[in-house]
């Protein structure tokens, strides 16, 4: 204690002189101490005074910053031509760079959310997509190009759509009952009611008639991405969080976080459980988020799961609903792939079915649907929000102004969906083809000694390559991914992009291929292994 004292008083000889002397001494050195030591109010005063001083300092700096701009402002306008602007800018720069770290250069600044989007690094998923689109494989023209296995796109049934469009395009857009007015004029932002009817019919058809979708509960958006974003906008505020079972779609991070300011909390699923969702892990993730002080607003699931491709069983869905009810959460169910592929062993169960039959609160379930995968029309950009919550519907209807679908596409789709013969045949043929492709691809992988998850639907397979990575970590996984991209010239999606907790898993999208390309793909994979 004594040393303490001596240190504080930078005047050691005097400390030994006498107690009273010491006090005066200290007071001289530590300016506030005199005041602090007085009376019982010492504690209060001792903390308030520096704070107040600091506050005034801030105030002073702020006002200086402001006035620093103003007085120097008038001159430039009077000075003509080019040279003053430069000088002006530099001045602005110097003022800003001192007080705000963002104003590094005096140029017009992008918002901080904007710059976070710029800085947001491209994940291997996006890098791979970019590389593949720059140098795409083509059998005759570019045989050394990169084969695209990273983009979830169904090209298998493109010919059907093409044939249909060849015949019907003109008629469906213009002749059809109305004149040109119908396509050029303003139309409701949330989609034409005819298209809503048609889509609801199509969705029921995909679900094999087990569910009826009410067109008035539907909002159409230009793609699934804006649909998800819009729901998130409606359900959560900045800083709130959603639980998402991982591995999840590599796009979800951008879709949800960029503009809404919402957080994602992954709920890790493991290969030992077949990557299925368990309530215990949900609970654990929820509690962890709570502990971090995050407010959890809901759960986002994809069914069939992207990237794993498995279906959520009826039981899982019930458990999920119980969990949501207990914690008072929303559920966003993306059922984009419901129509693709077929499986005799397991039936696809839509959230809409469960909600229909059970006593659960319909208001907390929101379904997202899209035509990108099921009808293989991603270029048309049509997404659907289906909800029974009037609040959400009303708000989404208003927000649809930011992402409404072009009337041309709507007209085309209306007549396409109304052609029920075509739709029926399309669904059947498409399923057959996806299934065939899937068995071919999975078989090919098996021959190479690669196991993949038994995927029920979806246009991809989730393969376990953990035996081929060294070290057994994310680093090893990314090294393998790089080898795939640079040596084997094929773009696949590594599990780490999907926030998979176990290294060594990869997603292969095979519906962009043709059947005769499969041997080539297998050859290239083998080259790396």
């Amino acid at each position, binding site marked *: 204690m004594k040393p303490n004292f001596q240190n504080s008083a930078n005047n050691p000889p005097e400390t030994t002189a006498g107690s009273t002397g010491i006090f005066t001494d200290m007071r001289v050195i530590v300016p506030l101490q005199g005041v602090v030591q007085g009376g019982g109010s010492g504690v209060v005063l001792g903390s308030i005074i520096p704070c107040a001083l600091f506050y005034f300092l801030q105030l002073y700096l702020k006002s200086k910053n402001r006035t620093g701009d103003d007085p120097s402002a008038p001159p430039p306008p009077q000075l003509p031509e080019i040279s003053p602007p430069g000088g002006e800018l530099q001045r602005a720069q110097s003022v800003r760079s001192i007080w705000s770290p963002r104003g590094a250069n005096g140029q017009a600044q992008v*918002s901080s959310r904007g710059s976070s989007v710029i800085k947001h690094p491209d994940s291997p998923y996006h890098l791979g997509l970019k590389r593949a689109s720059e140098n795409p494989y083509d059998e005759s023209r570019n045989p050394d190009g990169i084969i695209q296995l990273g983009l979830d796109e169904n*090209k298998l049934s493109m010919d059907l759509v093409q044939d249909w469009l060849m015949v019907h395009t*003109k008629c469906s*857009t213009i002749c059809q009952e109305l004149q040109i007015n119908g*396509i050029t004029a303003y139309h409701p932002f949330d989609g034409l009611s005819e298209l809503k009817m048609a889509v609801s019919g199509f969705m029921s058809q995909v679900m094999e008639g087990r569910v009826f979708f009410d067109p008035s509960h539907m909002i159409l958006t230009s793609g699934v991405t804006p649909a998800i974003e819009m729901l998130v906008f409606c359900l959560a505020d900045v800083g709130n969080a959603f639980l998402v079972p991982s591995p999840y779609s590599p796009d979800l991070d951008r879709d949800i976080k960029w503009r809404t300011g919402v957080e994602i909390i992954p709920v890790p699923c493991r290969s030992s459980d077949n990557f299925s969702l368990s309530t215990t892990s949900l609970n654990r993730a929820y509690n962890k988020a709570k502990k971090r002080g995050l407010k959890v607003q809901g759960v986002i699931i994809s069914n069939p799961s992207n990237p794993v491709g498995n279906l959520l069983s009826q039981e899982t869905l019930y458990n999920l609903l119980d969990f949501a009810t207990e914690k008072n959460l929303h559920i966003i169910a993306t059922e984009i792939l419901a129509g693709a592929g077929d499986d005799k062993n397991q039936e696809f169960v839509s959230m809409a079915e469960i909600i229909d039959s059970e006593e659960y609160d319909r208001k*907390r379930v929101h379904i997202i649907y899209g035509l990108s995968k099921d009808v293989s029309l991603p270029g048309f950009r049509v997404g659907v929000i289906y909800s029974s919550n009037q609040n959400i519907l009303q708000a989404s209807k208003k*927000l649809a102004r930011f992402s409404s679908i072009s009337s041309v596409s709507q007209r085309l789709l209306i007549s396409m969906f109304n052609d029920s013969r075509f739709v029926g045949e399309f669904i059947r043929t498409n399923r057959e083809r996806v299934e065939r492709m899937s068995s071919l691809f999975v078989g090919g992988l098996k021959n190479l000694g690669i196991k993949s998850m038994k995927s029920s639907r979806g246009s991809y397979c989730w393969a376990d390559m953990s035996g081929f990575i060294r070290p057994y970590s994310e680093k090893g996984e990314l090294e393998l991914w790089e080898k795939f991209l640079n040596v084997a010239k094929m773009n696949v999606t590594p599990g780490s992009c999907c926030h998979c907790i176990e290294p060594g898993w990869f997603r292969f999208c095979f519906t962009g291929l043709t059947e005769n390309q499969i041997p080539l793909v297998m050859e290239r994979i083998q080259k790396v292994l």
Partner: protein
Amino acid sequence: MTQTGPRRLHNSGMEDESRDQSPSSSTGMRLIVPLQGIVQGRGGLILGSVIPCAMFYFLQFYLKRRRSPPNPPEHHTSSPPSPAPSSSNLTELSRSASRSNLLMSRGSIGRPHVSSRVHCIAKSNDSPYYIGLDKVSADPYDSFSNPNGVIQLGLAENRLTLDLIENWIAEKLNDSILGGGLSVSGIATYQPFDGMPELKVAMAGFMSQVMGRTVTFDPSQIVLTSGATSAIEILCFALADQGNAFLIPAPYYPGFDRDMKWRTGVELIPVHCRSSDNFTLSIPVLDQAFNQARKRGQKVKGILLSNPSNPVGNLMTRETLFSLLDFAREKNIHIISDELFAASTFGDEEFVSMAEIIDSEDTDKDRVHIVYGLSKDLALPGFRVGVIYSYNENVLTVSRKMTRFSPVSAPTQRIVTSMLSDTTFIKDFTERNRERLRAMYDLFVEGLEELGIGCTKSSGGLYCWCDMSGLIRPYNEKGELDLWDKLLNVAKINITPGSSCHCIEPGWFRCCFTTLDEKDIPVVIERIRSVVETCKSPS
């Protein structure tokens, strides 16, 4: 201070100890003043002042963070009341208010909670602008099938040149979507979110043709979005953070309130222009608004201007644009120039694009962003094609990435590409469009003048800005809305009242005349006359 200090210390109750032993006295003190222990250590002077400061700083920081989320709703709730009380007489308005009340209460009782921003949006009381639009779409006028319907003069939509578009589409549609050697994979597969390169080239050509004159537009600076609405929102996201503000010359397009504020959390600060200046923007007023915003602690990130102005229809002169640029440079803010009506000009004045101004400057290109679209100038609002044209590489990067949320559908892109590439069609179209606009404008304004209603001299846009202040009583927003209500419900005409456009003077209305047929004009004028006469009779 040196003398009072010790005396106070004697009172502190620890005096005995402190007198006995100097070291222990320091312990006593440390007990009393929590920070003293540290203060007395080495570097006491610095630590003693830094620590409370740091704590205080964090407290401020914490308070700010805690305060910021509830802030925007506060603003939103404070803004709706302004239309609400004045419009409480109107049946529609009060009904929609009660509906939203109901909604609110249901939201708070019903278990699953939605976000507070959704409340703002669901609750945002529809302005007369939207109520009018809804009313028309529920009961649209048609000279044969529904002669008692509501006539639409509230929507800036151009139907004067529909026949031209129709002819073109009838001829070229199939080729443009599927033809040109491209298979369906060109339209059905994933396309770049920010638009196909071909369309960008065609768009740049079109923009150079209609608004460039001396400037050419560079396709690499173009980002395509699904409509100008999302173009503006994306720019807003890219340029401003939550709580920042944009200056906007008022009266302004009523949709901006939704486009700019809803999801971005950005504020709009109206810069009021007056009829005495012919509603032109003056820099001192702008400066005043800027300083006031500053004083309130708001960070102004830019100016949003529409040129040709919507709803007034006047053009900005070259001098105004130059001084605006100077102003932006001086304050280090951005300029978003909404030039949606660039080719829909019909007056003697010449339209000057911001691109032309910035082209002659060497610096500051990166603070100018132009919004364009095909909804007005090519009369294709249903196609939903909007354009961001920026000189700022960062803004372009952000915008390109954000177009994932509002891409243009591929078949549409194909049609538009071949339409825009057909330069003879475009030339013919824009010329005839201008002629028809001029003719329609003259007819309509003449009709209004007969009724004693004057309009500002406008040279662009699909509307005219009329002064009905002589017909409203009382002379305030309430009188204006009364007249609007009469026109809507009695005369069955939907026009946009100035208050929806945040006009500071009551009694101004925006009438869009391009949805009409020439033969509809007498009907419209007759309908307005019926209301005008009832207004005039008491006086």
